[in-house]
């Protein structure tokens, strides 16, 4: 085993140890378990954005739409059709992913800022639908009431509704599942092709790679991950909010990814942790938290464009 591999393994073990033990080390530091759950879910969403942004080099600024669709899919399933947490997750993931895939086919030939612009505008469509269709979605008030259901494993029942720690571990399990699939895809030949497109699209095209199709697949996969995270978010809050589909939410996800480090796999999770904790703190101490969040955007862009992990990595190389 080379030094590089050993270092990677150590980091991986450290990350998972931190995540697994979070319910034990967070409360003494002033956190609470539900905050950890939120970090996991939003971190997964930021990682899904980064799957496209950091590893394919395609900027979608409307990804909150798929996140929100996932949340509504999950909520509608639990409210109207079946009282089952796994079914809710599946419904949300499929709804958001399929819609994302369909729209992706329409816009996949755009590039750069134009791609970003079209994704923002289309993302807003779903915001308006959620906002206007009050009879189904609850409109401005959001979708409620519904709640996550205890898990029946055959031999035992896990109460994830009232037991915050049990729910944290359930979310961590779902998170691990998604992250494993994401990591597997990125290591596959397809993942390497994504990197090739990011590095030099023209060269990839000359090599005979069907660039449009690959970007569409990457976009669709990212939408599925995003919708999955959104479904989990509905379970976290027992509530689906139209603001979860708004483009400002997309902006939050992108800044999490950038702040943590776009070029790294785990960066967005770190970015999400910083963002969630900061927002939680700011909104409790000042009514002008919007200015501070805006300032965070400006500062990150001007001084940390490579993200926190990018800075650390550069320091350790120097």
């Amino acid at each position, binding site marked *: 085993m080379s030094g590089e591999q050993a270092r990677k393994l150590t980091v991986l073990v450290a990350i998972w140890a931190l995540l697994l033990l979070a319910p034990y080390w967070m409360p003494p530091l002033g956190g609470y378990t539900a905050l950890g759950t939120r970090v996991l879910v939003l971190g997964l969403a930021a990682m899904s954005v980064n799957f496209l*942004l950091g590893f394919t080099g395609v*900027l979608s*600024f409307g990804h909150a739409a798929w996140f929100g669709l996932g949340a509504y899919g999950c909520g509608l399933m639990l409210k109207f059709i079946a009282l089952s947490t796994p079914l809710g997750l599946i419904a949300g993931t499929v709804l958001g992913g399929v819609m994302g895939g369909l729209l992706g086919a*329409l*816009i996949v*030939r*755009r*590039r*750069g*800022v*134009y791609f*970003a*612009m*079209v994704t*923002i*505008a*289309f993302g*807003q*469509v779903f915001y*308006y*639908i959620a906002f*206007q269709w009050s009879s189904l979605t609850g409109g401005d008030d959001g979708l409620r009431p519904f709640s996550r259901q205890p898990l029946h494993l055959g031999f035992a029942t896990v109460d994830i509704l009232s037991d915050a720690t049990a729910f944290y571990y359930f979310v961590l399990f779902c998170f691990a599942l998604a992250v494993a699939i994401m990591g597997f895809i990125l290591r596959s030949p397809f993942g390497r092709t994504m990197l090739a497109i990011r590095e030099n699209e023209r060269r990839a095209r000359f090599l005979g790679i069907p660039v449009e199709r690959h970007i569409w697949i990457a976009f669709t996969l990212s939408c599925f991950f995003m919708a999955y995270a959104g479904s989990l978010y509905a379970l976290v809050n027992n509530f689906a909010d139209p603001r979860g589909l708004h*483009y400002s939410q997309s*902006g939050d996800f*992108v*800044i999490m990814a*950038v702040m943590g480090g776009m070029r790294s796999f785990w960066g967005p999770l770190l970015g999400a942790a910083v963002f969630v904790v900061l927002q939680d703190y700011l909104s409790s101490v000042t009514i*002008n938290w*919007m*200015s501070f*969040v*805006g*300032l*965070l*955007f*400006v500062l*990150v*862009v*001007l001084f940390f*464009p490579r993200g926190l992990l990018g800075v650390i990595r550069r320091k350790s190389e120097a």
Partner: protein
Amino acid sequence: MTQLLLFNVTNGLIIGAFYVLMALGLSLILNLSNVINFAHGGFLVIGGYIAYTITPYVGFWGALLIAPPLTAVIGLAVERVLIRPLYGRDPLYSLLLTFGLAFIIEDGTRFIWGAQGKPVTIPAFLAQPLSYEFFFITGYRLFMVAVVLFTVALLFLLLRYTRLGIRIRAGTLDLETVSALGVNVRALRSLNFAVGIYLAGLSGVLAAGQLGLEPTMGAGVLMPSFIAIIVGGVGSLTGTLLGGLLIGVASGLAAVFLPAASEAIMYVLMAVVLLIRPRGLLGEEGMMT
């Protein structure tokens, strides 16, 4: 029914004229500098509030003349300090920066002027309806449309015949060559940015007279302006003009037949355009890719 229809079409045209003014500014900045200015709505708000603040001293006409250039000066400072370092980097960064800036501007105006809506008084003779039958055509609305028409005509003349305008158009096509020919590209970008922000400030003053002011009003016009650009075709200012009017009228018409869809219709229009003619109505081949 005819009157209702006429009412809403007029409404749509007036709203469309607004979108045009906003979208043209956005489009100028996007075409030359490859920056999606998310804070464009914020500059509209700044223009409006400056007008509100100075109206008691200089009157509405004075505010109409002074507020937009003041907004442009603020825009110039923002461009110089915050956005200039980002040219040549991934457009992602300028997008995120202006996105954060929009937050700061919205919160800042709320902090300075309060969250309550503020009215801007317009001259009495403009506030009167022109006739009893067409009560919705007030002098102010006609005046607004006239100002927009005049400004747009001026802008197109500027771009067509002046040295600055020709350089901006050339820079849109190939900035590197323009730079190689000895044009100061930095100054060109700054001036171009200022012109765009001037238009946002002007829409702010006009909107203030019609609707009053609120810190959140900037976010509301941003999306329609994006759609106007996409529908009209990125890279074509005439397209943006057409796109703005089109979505304005479309949402006006939708308000008659299906009120809930008056916002959604713009997006439907955009989807249809992207499906049938991906580069937009007047977009040039290759600009969108």
